[in-house]
């Protein structure tokens, strides 16, 4: 689980079944395991009216485990971008009583949270659980470009090419961590690049 360092750094919990009329799960990769673990303690019939949206990732694992929960609806998608229109649609038609559960990588949780916040759900009332890779979604503070799946420290901005220090400073609005130029004084200074967010 990601460690808490500074205040804007999100902290995640453990999914638990909430009272509610509709349950919407959004998960990627190993986030599926958080859902299965939660299912073990959920009341009978909990998943009957639940909707699970799952982005399995390249290895395509865990789909069977989620299908086995027999959710009311199950959707599989190749990327978060591809589920976005559907998610927006679902939330704009939703009523109070819908509960949201987000599980998996920080990038997935952050982006789904961003959409849910826009739809009027308070971030404290969403269930989140971080599973799998620690890879970060990073915004370059210089060119504002977003680089997905950053695992190294420092990291190269995929837009402007600057070498960035990936800070813990997180923006809920952008669902991204801030990356700040690490060698602004002297570009020839290249600190060693380490795998920091495996």
């Amino acid at each position: 689980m990601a460690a808490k360092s500074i205040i804007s750094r999100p902290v995640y919990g453990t999914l638990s079944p909430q009272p509610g009329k509709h349950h919407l799960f959004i998960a990627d990769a190993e986030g599926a395991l958080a859902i299965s673990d939660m299912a073990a303690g959920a009341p009978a019939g909990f998943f009957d009216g639940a909707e699970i949206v799952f982005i399995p990732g390249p290895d395509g694992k865990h789909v069977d485990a989620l299908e086995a929960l027999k959710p009311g609806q199950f959707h599989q998608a190749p990327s978060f971008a591809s589920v976005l229109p559907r998610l927006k649609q679902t939330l704009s038609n939703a009523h109070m009583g819908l509960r949201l559960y987000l599980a998996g990588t920080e990038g997935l949780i952050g982006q789904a949270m961003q959409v849910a916040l826009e739809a009027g759900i308070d971030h404290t009332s969403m269930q989140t659980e971080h599973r799998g890779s620690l890879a970060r979604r990073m915004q370059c503070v210089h060119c504002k470009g977003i680089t997905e799946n950053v695992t190294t420290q420092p990291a190269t901005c995929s837009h402007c090419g600057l070498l960035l220090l990936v800070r813990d400073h997180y923006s809920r609005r952008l669902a991204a961590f801030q990356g700040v130029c690490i060698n602004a004084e002297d570009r020839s200074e290249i600190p060693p690049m380490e795998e920091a967010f495996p």
Partner: protein
Amino acid sequence: MSTGTTKLDVVVSDVVPVNELVTRFHFRRRDGQMLPTFSGGAHVVVEMRDGDRTRLNPYSLMGSPLDTREYTISVRRDDVGRGGSLFMHRSVKPGLEMVISYPVNLFSLDLRARKHLMLAGGIGITPFMAQTAQLAGEGGNFELHYTCRTASLGTYADVLRERYDRRIRLYHDDRDERIDLDRLLSTQPLGTHLYVCGPAGMINWARDRAASLGWPSEAVHFEHFAAPQPGLPFDVTLAVSGKTIRVGEQQSLLEAIEAAGVDPPYLCRGGVCGQCETNVISYDGKFIHNDHWLSEEDHRSGCKIMPCVSRFEGRSLVLER
């Protein structure tokens, strides 16, 4: 003077009977200045000098927050209560000089909400008078459901209907009209916040239904003005000042402490804000906790008490201050 309750010198500028139980009071500042700004849902604590007895009762401000030339409150007469409302009805006349606290808001609107769903019961309508005025001024999205015993006791129902038309729904007990709460709660768009003010039973019902229908507690706001409950007299010792005082049958612990010349902090005087929390040094007897602030664990531990609403039965009680 208590923490957070700076006082205002006011004069009663008008007293208006509203119906057989409710009277409205208008206050202006004695120095002619504007009153402090407030937000919808705020209350003031009114000091009532009744002979050698001082009563302090909280009342919601019901005027528009956009107009601070005067403050208005509405008081429902309670013939079997502890006498505060009777004092207001019988003894407060235009021209009387009074002292009230600065406004405090323990029931504010969450302005991030997409929609504000309000439930009022009886005199619980007063904070919504100010909140709806505030929201209407800002073009806010709200809907108010108001239950009252009879049409003639539907305090300000006509005013509200005239101002906001179909955004106001009325329910009369004598016509057996009931809020279909489950349906109402289940059909609200995402991002709706619920506000409830009325009798304890109504608040509990609404909170309970909202929770079981999946409303997050952050989206549920409520205000309950609990009057301190009477009980057997008891003695209390205040460790810091070394005073031992008697709490009368009709008096709250907080009122007895104030009468003894100590100035403890308070905001709501209704057991919800946490401001008056006091440590218990020792006791021999049993607590009658009436507050909504302390956890059940705190109640069991016997280490803390909320003097504004809680009582004690037993041989000795020593509080920190």
